[in-house]
């Protein structure tokens, strides 16, 4: 797991919480606690802490959620693979060019069920970040994912996709090996898979790179993840020629989980521990596991034809327009 604790990397909007926590720590360390005055002060501080935490975390803005979604201590796909699943056996390579380490996949067991787990993977330290290319997959990642999903379909394993990418990699090699086609083929072929597919956005749901593994029967999202057609910074740069207005863009894009649920882009918002998944990865994993199991079990009863028809209809409905 993350070597750093959330407390050592607070986000800007968490500063009021950190200040109270520090006062609490100082008071506890310095003064005799059997002094009734100190005890009263401690109780008051703890009360205030609870209130401030609740106030901040219950009213997170879209931009604050984006910051949590990108927090360097946030659990990644392999963390959930270890925490939610009884077993994960990684399978590698696209059988043609490379093994993309920013998009992982393999067999997994989830509470006795067999499954194919795929997911974007970010790195924790400098070295691993480079290895994982900051979670930005090349064409080979999407082609490996499709290979594994087809294998799953052939042998009746449901597919679980954990989405966590700023976007597909914008690079020369990626273009030369046709990243656009790799994503497009996944979009089309995921409609042909004859097994249940459950996707969960666990961090960043960055545009086509996210959708490339998320054409699913159920699309879930963690409470502090996001799913968007463009990064808030990119949107702000185009709209206002000013990347620092990303918080406004995050609001305008309706990219936060409650809004995505209201718009029908996602089917369920999975709650996170207070402050975000990185405050308590094990608890976050338990919540994710519960949701995955429930949806897999619901979908398990459908025959392949029904699954595919419903998947088609689910995406066919998305979007509003006039004059239809």
């Amino acid at each position: 797991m993350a070597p750093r604790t959330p407390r050592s990397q607070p986000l800007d909007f968490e500063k009021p919480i950190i200040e109270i926590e520090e006062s609490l720590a100082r008071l506890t360390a310095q003064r005799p606690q059997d002094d009734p005055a100190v005890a009263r002060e401690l109780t008051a501080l703890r009360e205030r802490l609870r209130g401030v935490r609740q106030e901040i975390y219950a009213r997170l803005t879209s931009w604050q959620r984006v910051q949590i979604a990108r927090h360097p201590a946030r659990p990644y796909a392999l963390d959930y693979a270890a925490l939610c699943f009884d077993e994960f056996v990684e399978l590698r390579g696209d059988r043609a060019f490379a093994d993309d380490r920013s998009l992982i996949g393999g067999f997994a067991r989830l509470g006795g069920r067999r499954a194919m787990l795929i997911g974007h993977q970010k790195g924790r330290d400098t070295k691993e970040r480079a290895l994982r290319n900051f979670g930005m997959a090349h064409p080979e990642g999407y082609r490996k994912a499709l290979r594994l999903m087809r294998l799953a379909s052939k042998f009746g394993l449901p597919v679980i996709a954990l989405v966590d990418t700023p976007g597909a990699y914008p690079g020369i090699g990626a273009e030369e090996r046709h990243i656009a086609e790799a994503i497009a083929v996944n979009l089309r072929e995921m409609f042909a898979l004859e097994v249940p597919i459950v996707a969960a956005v666990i961090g960043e749901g960055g545009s086509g790179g996210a959708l490339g593994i998320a054409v699913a029967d159920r699309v879930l999202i963690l409470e502090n993840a996001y799913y968007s057609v463009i990064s808030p910074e990119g949107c702000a740069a185009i709209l206002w020629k000013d990347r620092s207005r990303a918080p406004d863009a995050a609001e305008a894009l309706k990219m936060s989980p409650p809004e995505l649920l209201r718009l029908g882009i996602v089917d369920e918002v999975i709650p996170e521990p207070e402050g975000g998944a990185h405050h308590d990865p094990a608890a976050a994993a338990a919540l994710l596991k519960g949701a995955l199991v429930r949806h897999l079990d619901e979908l398990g009863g459908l025959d392949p034809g029904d699954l595919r028809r419903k998947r088609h209809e689910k995406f066919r409905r998305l979007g509003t327009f006039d004059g239809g």
Partner: protein
Amino acid sequence: MKKTGEKRVFKRRAVAGTSRRGGRKAGIPEGLWTKCESEACGQVIFNQQLEENLRVCPACGHHFPLGARARIAALVDEGTFEECDRGLRAVDSLGFPNYADRLGVEHGRRETPEAVVCGTGSMGGVRVSLAVMDFTFLGGSMGAATGEKIARAVARAESGGRALVIVSASGGARMHEGCFSLMQMAKISGELQRLAEARLPYISVLTHPTTGGVTASFATLGDLIIAEPGAMIGFAGPRVIRETTHQELPEGFQTAEFLLERGLIDRIVSRREMRDTIARFLGYLLGGA
């Protein structure tokens, strides 16, 4: 998804324009001519001649942008096009800044108020379902109405047992519609999956520019993929790639010729030969002449 493609075209158009100063210099009356966009060419072309030549420079073969209606006229057998879903149009579903105003302006001045014109028509006597994107409508961006129209065009091919031809021209997603825009990629790909299963042909034509989410969905899913010469085709915009990788982009990066060289498309076909080429390919795929 980014707007780089759009910007690049605007730059090229600015070069093109019907500049008055240049006109006097060349001794040709104002507003009747266009200077070739290709810097190496610079040929002064009478507008009427340019239109008659499907907006292809007679001197160097450079392909100027072509509106959806002119494109359809150039593609289908004369008088055979029947438009569908003409009234279908975008709404400001997210309350996005300035979007409603922009839509209002665009809707007011357009015959077809969307970034795509759809319908059926004959090509060499074969009835096809057609979707032709229009870059001049909000950069050919993919809104929910755009996606719905294209999805219906695919479904129309499937239910009618016809071939599908889509001509792409797009800067990518329409960020004003947020994830609804993104989901059109899946929606259309789902319809294409059904069309493929029905073994009906889909010919994808890529024109300048085809980028972002359109490239990463239906544009690259054709049974055959044909591009116009010089078209810029890519997923990420060149500026984004340069900023991310800090690398110099190779010569001709993301042009149709670059894609052909790397095996990503079937052929490059000149606009003037597009109709006959598609009709010929449909002959192979559907049988017949």
